[in-house]
Structure formats: structure tokens, C-alpha cells
């Protein structure tokens, strides 16, 4: 059951099989398995320390994987360098925000265009017209995204000064700027009020509709999970302990025991 | 200066000289590692000021001229020396470069000044390189440090007197002067009984030369020739004393300052050290009764604020300046060419601080060093004892 739907012809957006990660004796992932179908929103929940962020970091190739396989749209990620993963259309946000504090909000978003656009040092040094052109179009795109995420007011601020919640949204904007085929969000609702959470969920759903990408969502906010996810994978102690619709999972005794507790 | 071309002087004269002034200039090290040399131009300025107050120097053409001396700092950086010298010639329009200092900077400016026809006179450096330069026609004359080759010659002769077949251990700084000296020394001992058996070098930026001294001692040489300068000499003497390596020790004339070089090593550490000299050591009060030294002391006293009476470098500046004054008294033209010739002709000039029996000036246009005779000396109970004068024979 933990296999990514085999029925589809197209390869899954993300398939993580039996991945194992250790940190000097600490087993962070112990055969975790997660599959995300193209344009599916898959939730990833589990107790603190279950290995969710580690899983993200494995896909981003920031952590070394002891064993197991990770494929994005059918390509083996483990054979790539971290910077090549972005090229596969994988965008992510960070749990404790990873923005560039000294760049302006606008530039932060523009960095998101990096993997899509061309123009290395030579081309730039020569000032090829193609570069000027793409720069202009990307700027417009970025400003549009900022508007969509209600960050326009901050556009020319230095990112370091934003409140936590805005930082999370900024990260999201940057991720969307990558025009990803797989979007991995690590607790995007942090620092948002209930109302804002629902807006955010709404927004992601909308964008997915228009751009069409798969989402892997780590979130402790069950409202967000419930309102956004088609399916949810539950992780505990680095193992996949359940997969199912939000409702199935919510009522799964093991999940309640390990994760939700009485509070639902 | 915004006028493109350096304005030529009036009626056939070169720039920098008028009926009542003559303008001299020099770029010297006055900051950074070699900052101590600032004392030299300071002394010159003091002396020239006194002369100017007295109405100026009466030159060969009978005219009294005031001396303007422009002194710039190059921090011993040849690049800045070049820059400064250009400025002196083009902006300040000096008549001649007086008392440039240091081998590298002086070498660096030489081509430019020669092209511009500006003479460099009484520079405080003695590298053998300048002989070559002169042979190539550089406009230089009467440098006021002994030619390194000549000093070595003197040193070798006195070593021979002590022990005709001595083995020699050498410490030298890893720079032009040091290596030149070593090469020169080896050359000189070739056809004598002497033999260089050990050589150690050090970097101006080294912490200490202890290790080198230990190595030199282990060579078992009879004589220690120390081409080092400044604190490295003091360190060497101190260390040699600690590991009691008591052999005949020679230091170069530039390292004979009692108060800053020898005394700090500790009284017995410097005992018996030998060297050569052409001016009295002013850093100790040993020679105060000499009339010339008295003059110096009074001069320094009058200019306390600028001149330290016990500073040997200042004394050199004083000595060089007296040479410059002498040259101006002889000089009766108004062209740079003319000044150069005058200086080249100088011979047998006596100065306040010159050791008795020693005069300055080669009188030989082809030999651009003004020091042609030196006295050997030995450091005995706290003061230099001067021995026989050796004169360059050619």
C-alpha cells in the first residue's frame, strides 16, 4: 500500500523507497517510503523527530542516504548534486525559514528563477541581450507573485526584517517562482492565524490548479492538512506507519496514539 | 602642477635654481619598518635651516643662495620612491636629488632621473649595483656609504691580520645587500688562506636568528662575519654569548651603533666585536672631546626638537649635508650637469664627524662612492677603539 500508485502510466512526481539515514547512531529514517503522484497533494505528518524534515533534506541531497532510492518524475535523485535537484523541478521551503536576509524581498523571489533561466558568468559579462530580456520578464513575474502573496508592500525591504509569517510566505513565493513540478513545503502554516492558514491553503490549491504541480506538505496544523491534502502519509521513528485520506488517517488509532493525542 | 611640460629654468639654467635659492629633494623611508631613517632628512633640514638663517650658502659663483630641501616619504617602497621622485622633478622642480636612501628605492628611481638629467648626489647607500649603473652612464655621484665591495675588502684584510687561514661563518640578510656582501666576501677570500665554511640567511620578517647562530657555531668556524642589521645583530650577539661561542666577530659598519645595537645585547656580549667606520660613533659619549664631535653635539643641542644627539643615523644626515654644502660652495654653474661634475670632482673633503685621517670624495667620475678610506675598529669595554685607516687602492 505504501507504493506510489502503480496504476498511472506517467512516473510518480516523487517516490521515496525504503530510505535509511543515520547520524552517528541516531536513526533518523528507517526505511521510510513515500509516494506522490503527479499533481497530487500528499500530506506528511508524524511526531516531532519522526524524520519529515530529514526526508526533505534527503530529496534536496543535503543529507546522505545510507540506503533506499529516491526518484523524482522517474529520475534518480541520489545520482544528482544538491544544485541539480532544483533542475528537476523540485522546490522546497524550510521549516525554520531559509531566506537570504540581506537581499531584498524581490531579489529573494527572483533567485527562484535561477534554475529555470540561462546566463552564466560569461554570457552575463558579455551582456547578451537575451539576458536583459529574460531579466525583465522575470521581474514582472516576481512582482506578480509578490502581489499574489500580499508581499508587495515589502518588495524592496531587506528580507531579514520580515515577521515570521511573512518569511514563510516569501519562501513560498520563491518556491513558486521556480515553477516547480514538485513543491515540498515544511510547515508553511507556522506563524499564521487560523484565518491566514485557510487563505494559504486556498492559494496553494488555486496555484496547483493553474500551474499543475505535485505537493508534499509537512504540517502539524491539521486544519491545513485536512483542507489541502488528497492523501496523507504518516511517519513515526523514521518509518511509514500509515497512508490514506486525511479522514482515514485522523481516525487511525496508531496515528492518534503517536501523533494527534486526545486533542482533536 | 597643471601646466603640461615642466617649465624650463631661466636663461640656460636648469629648473630649481634661481639667484637666491636652490631646490633639493629626496624621497626616503620615513615610515614603516625602516622608519628610523627619518632622522637623516631631519638632520639635513635642521642644518640647512641654520645655513639659511645665516643668509644661505655662498656658492662658487659668489651668489648667496638659500637651500630648499623637499623631503618625501616612501616607506622604503620603491614604487612610492619612483612616484615621489617624479613629483619632486615635475611638480616641485628640484635641481637635484640629495641623499636618496636605501638600495632598492635608489635603484628604482635611477633610470628616471638619468633620463630627466637630474643628478642623484650623496645618496645613503653603497650597493655594488651603482658601479654598474654608473658605468651605464647614470647621473649619480659621491654616495655616502662605502661600496660594499670595498668594506668587505677592508674586513677581509683585518681578518687576515688576525689569522691568515681562518675559517669563516657568515650570517646575512636575504636581500640584495646581504647576498651581495656574501658573494663579494667569497670572491675576496678565493686567493687567500681564508675560507667560508658556513652561511645562514634570515628574512627581515623573521622572529629571531637564534637557530641560525646555533647552526653557525656548530660549524666550528674561527671567525663570525655578521652582515646583519639592527636587532638581528643584537640578537645574534646575545645568542652567541648565551651558547658561549667566543670567536672573532665582525659586524658591518651599518650595525655599529652602540646605544641601539651593541649595548642592548648585554655588556659582555658585544665585547671584542670588530667593524669598520668612517665617522665617529655619536651614540656613545666616548669621542665627545673631538672638536668635530663637539660641533655636532652643539648643533644637535640647538635643534633638540628635531635631532637626537646620540642617533647615528641623524649624524649621517649631518655628515651628508656638510658634503652637500661643500659641493655647493664649489659649484659655480647653474646646470644639473655642472653640479654633477662638481660633486664628482670632490676629493679630500673633511667633515665634523669624519674620523681623523679620513676624508671624503673619490675625485673620480667613474667611482660613484665618496668613501675611499675607512678605519678598522674594535668594541672594547663599552666603546669603539679605532685602529689603522685602510685606504682603497686602485
Amino acid at each position, binding site marked *: 500500500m505504501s507504493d506510489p500508485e502503480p496504476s498511472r502510466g506517467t512516473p510518480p512526481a516523487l517516490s521515496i523507497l525504503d530510505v535509511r539515514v543515520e547520524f552517528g547512531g541516531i536513526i533518523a529514517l528507517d526505511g521510510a517510503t513515500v509516494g506522490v503522484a503527479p499533481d497530487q497533494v500528499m500530506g506528511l505528518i508524524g*511526531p*516531532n*523527530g519522526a524524520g519529515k524534515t530529514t526526508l526533505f533534506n534527503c530529496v534536496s541531497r543535503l543529507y546522505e542516504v545510507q540506503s533506499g532510492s529516491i526518484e523524482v518524475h522517474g529520475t534518480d535523485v541520489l545520482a544528482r548534486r544538491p544544485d541539480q535537484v532544483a533542475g528537476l523541478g523540485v522546490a522546497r521551503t524550510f521549516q*525554520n525559514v531559509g531566506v537570504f536576509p540581506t537581499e531584498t524581498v524581490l531579489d529573494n523571489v527572483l533567485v527562484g528563477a535561477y534554475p529555470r533561466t540561462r546566463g552564466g558568468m560569461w554570457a552575463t559579462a558579455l551582456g547578451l541581450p537575451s539576458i536583459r530580456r529574460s531579466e525583465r520578464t522575470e521581474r514582472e513575474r516576481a512582482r506578480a507573485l509578490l502581489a499574489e502573496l500580499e508581499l508587495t508592500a515589502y518588495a524592496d525591504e531587506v528580507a531579514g526584517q520580515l*515577521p515570521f*509569517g511573512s518569511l514563510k510566505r516569501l519562501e513560498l513565493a520563491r518556491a513558486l517562482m521556480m515553477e516547480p513540478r514538485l513543491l515540498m513545503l515544511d510547515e508553511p502554516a*507556522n506563524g499564521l492565524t487560523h*484565518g491566514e492558514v485557510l487563505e494559504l491553503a486556498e492559494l496553494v490549491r488555486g496555484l496547483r490548479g493553474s500551474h499543475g504541480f505535485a505537493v508534499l506538505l509537512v504540517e502539524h496544523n491539521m486544519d491545513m492538512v485536512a483542507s489541502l491534502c488528497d492523501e496523507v502519509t504518516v511517519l513515526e521513528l523514521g518509518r511509514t506507519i500509515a497512508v490514506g485520506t486525511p479522514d482515514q488517517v485522523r481516525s487511525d488509532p496508531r496515528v492518534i496514539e503517536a501523533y494527534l*493525542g486526545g*486533542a482533536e | 602642477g597643471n601646466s603640461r611640460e615642466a617649465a624650463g629654468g631661466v636663461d640656460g639654467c636648469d629648473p630649481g635654481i634661481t639667484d637666491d635659492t636652490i631646490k633639493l629633494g629626496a624621497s626616503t623611508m620615513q615610515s614603516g619598518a625602516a622608519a628610523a631613517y627619518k632622522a637623516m632628512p631631519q638632520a639635513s633640514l635642521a642644518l640647512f635651516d641654520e645655513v639659511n638663517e645665516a643668509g644661505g650658502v655662498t656658492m662658487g659663483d659668489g651668489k648667496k643662495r638659500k637651500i630648499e630641501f623637499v623631503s618625501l616619504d616612501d616607506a622604503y617602497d620603491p614604487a612610492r620612491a619612483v612616484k615621489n621622485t617624479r613629483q619632486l622633478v615635475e611638480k616641485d622642480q628640484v635641481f637635484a636629488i640629495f641623499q636618496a636612501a636605501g638600495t632598492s628605492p635608489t635603484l628604482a628611481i635611477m633610470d628616471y632621473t638619468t633620463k630627466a638629467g637630474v643628478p642623484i648626489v650623496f645618496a645613503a647607500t653603497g650597493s655594488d649595483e651603482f658601479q654598474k649603473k654608473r658605468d651605464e652612464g647614470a647621473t649619480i655621484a659621491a654616495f655616502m656609504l662605502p661600496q660594499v665591495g670595498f668594506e668587505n675588502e677592508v674586513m677581509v684584510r683585518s681578518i687576515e691580520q688576525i689569522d691568515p687561514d681562518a675559517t669563516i661563518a657568515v650570517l646575512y640578510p636575504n636581500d640584495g645587500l646581504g647576498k651581495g656582501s656574501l658573494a663579494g666576501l667569497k670572491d675576496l677570500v678565493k686567493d687567500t688562506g681564508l675560507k667560508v665554511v658556513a652561511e645562514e640567511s634570515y628574512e627581515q620578517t623573521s622572529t629571531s636568528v637564534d637557530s641560525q647562530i646555533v647552526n653557525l657555531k656548530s660549524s666550528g668556524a674561527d671567525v663570525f662575519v655578521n652582515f646583519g642589521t639592527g636587532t638581528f645583530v643584537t640578537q645574534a650577539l646575545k645568542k652567541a654569548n648565551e651558547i658561549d661561542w667566543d670567536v672573532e666577530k665582525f659586524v658591518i659598519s651599518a650595525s655599529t651603533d652602540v646605544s641601539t645595537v651593541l649595548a642592548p645585547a648585554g655588556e659582555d656580549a658585544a665585547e671584542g666585536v670588530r667593524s669598520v667606520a668612517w665617522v665617529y660613533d655619536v651614540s656613545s659619549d666616548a669621542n665627545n672631546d673631538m672638536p668635530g664631535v663637539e660641533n655636532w653635539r652643539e648643533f644637535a643641542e640647538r635643534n633638540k626638537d628635531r635631532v637626537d644627539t646620540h642617533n647615528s643615523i641623524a649624524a649621517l644626515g649631518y655628515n651628508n649635508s656638510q658634503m652637500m654644502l661643500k659641493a655647493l660652495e664649489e659649484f659655480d654653474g647653474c646646470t644639473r650637469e655642472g653640479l654633477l661634475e662638481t660633486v664628482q670632482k670632490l676629493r679630500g673633503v673633511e667633515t665634523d664627524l669624519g674620523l681623523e685621517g679620513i676624508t671624503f670624495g673619490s675625485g673620480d667620475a667613474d667611482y660613484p662612492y665618496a668613501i675611499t678610506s675607512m678605519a678598522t675598529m674594535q668594541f672594547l669595554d663599552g666603546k669603539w677603539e679605532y685602529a689603522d685607516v685602510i685606504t682603497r687602492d686602485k
Partner: protein
Amino acid sequence: MTFFATKQLTASYGRGTVLHNVEVSVDQGDIAVILGANGAGKTTFMRAITGLVKTQGSIVLDGLELVGKRTHSIARHGIAHVPQGRGTFKDLTVADNLRVGGYRLPERQVAALMDRWYDFFPKLKSRSNQLAGGMSGGEQQMLAIARALISQPRLLLLDEPSLGLAPKVTAEVFSVLTEINAETGITVLVVEQNAKVALAAASKGFVMETGRIVRSGPAESMRNDDEIRRAYLG
């Protein structure tokens, strides 16, 4: 009696004022929750209390004026502050992090307190010698809370404690807060987005918008307020 109160409190970063005349007062033994949209100034308010931002106005703790005091001396007057988004010492071990919390207490007492929190957060115990930097987001949040409580504060400031915590843990944290509060009468001021849980535990509530307190009152009255429901509870 009011144990802690701010009057005419304004705070600003290099440019632009962020807080305008904020007036908050809580009694000894209160658990007060501050709700507010993202960017409202909640974190700034917390930072103002512990002297981490430039502030004017007055902050009084148990009759003692805090404005103008340096952060460490404010802390020494019995205020513990769990900053938003961790604030653990990444290159210290978990145990050392807790020891720093007990920096000003006698060794033996610290040891006892550490055991107590190890029991409450077993995860921390099993990792006591791991560098905190290696812990997961939630684990670090637990560590930060434990460290704050070990210092035995009279006033505890929590900036979104539920941040990154699993629902179960969040619930546990709030219940233990009420426990301790009942036990020791510690006063708690908590900024929280998980209003449901927070208001449940709280006795008093404030709502902050764009740097101003726009509503305040007993917690239950807030729980039943439609406007607040829509924005914060749902």
C-alpha cells in the same frame, strides 16, 4: 493585583515604529494569551519586554520598572522568554542547553529540575549528549521551553510555543503549563496562533493588530466571540 503591566509602550526597529502605546496587564498567576495576525507585532512586544528592541513607555514587573534595563538583568528579575522559532544553543549539547537555563541556580537544584523535564520530554533525555543543533525543529522547541522553565521564572514569555510541535505535544505542553501554574502560581504570557488550545488554557486574552491592542478580556468571552472565532479559531 496586577503583577505585570505595560503602559504607553512603543517599540521601534531602526526605522518605523512597530508598537503603539500597547497596554497589557496581567495578574499574578494569570495565563494570558496574545492573538494577532502575522506581522501584528506580537514578537516585537515580547522582545520589548526583555529589552531586545528599542522601547519607550513603561513595563512594570511586580512594582519594578524594566524599561531601560539590560536583557540579562531583566532575566535575572525572574522573566524567562522562549523566542519565536527555537533559540536553542545549536553547538551545545542538550544537557548543556538545560544547564544554561539553570545558570543562576545551585548545581544540585539544576540536576533535579533537569530530571523532571527529561521525564516530561523523554526525547530530550535520550539525546542529552547530542548537540542541540542536530535536533528536529519540534525537539528544539521542546528544549527551548524546558530550558526556560528550568530557570524557575516568575513570569514566562512564550512566543508561539506550538510552533513546530506535534498536536499531541502542543496539548501536553499547555496542560503542563496549567499544572505548573496551579502548583507555583507562575504567571504566563503566551503568543499563540493555535488559539483553540491556548484560549482553553488561558484565563485572559488580548488581540493585537498592527501594533495595537484592539481587544482584551477574559479568555472564555473571547472563545465565544464570533469575530475571533472566524479569524483565530474556526
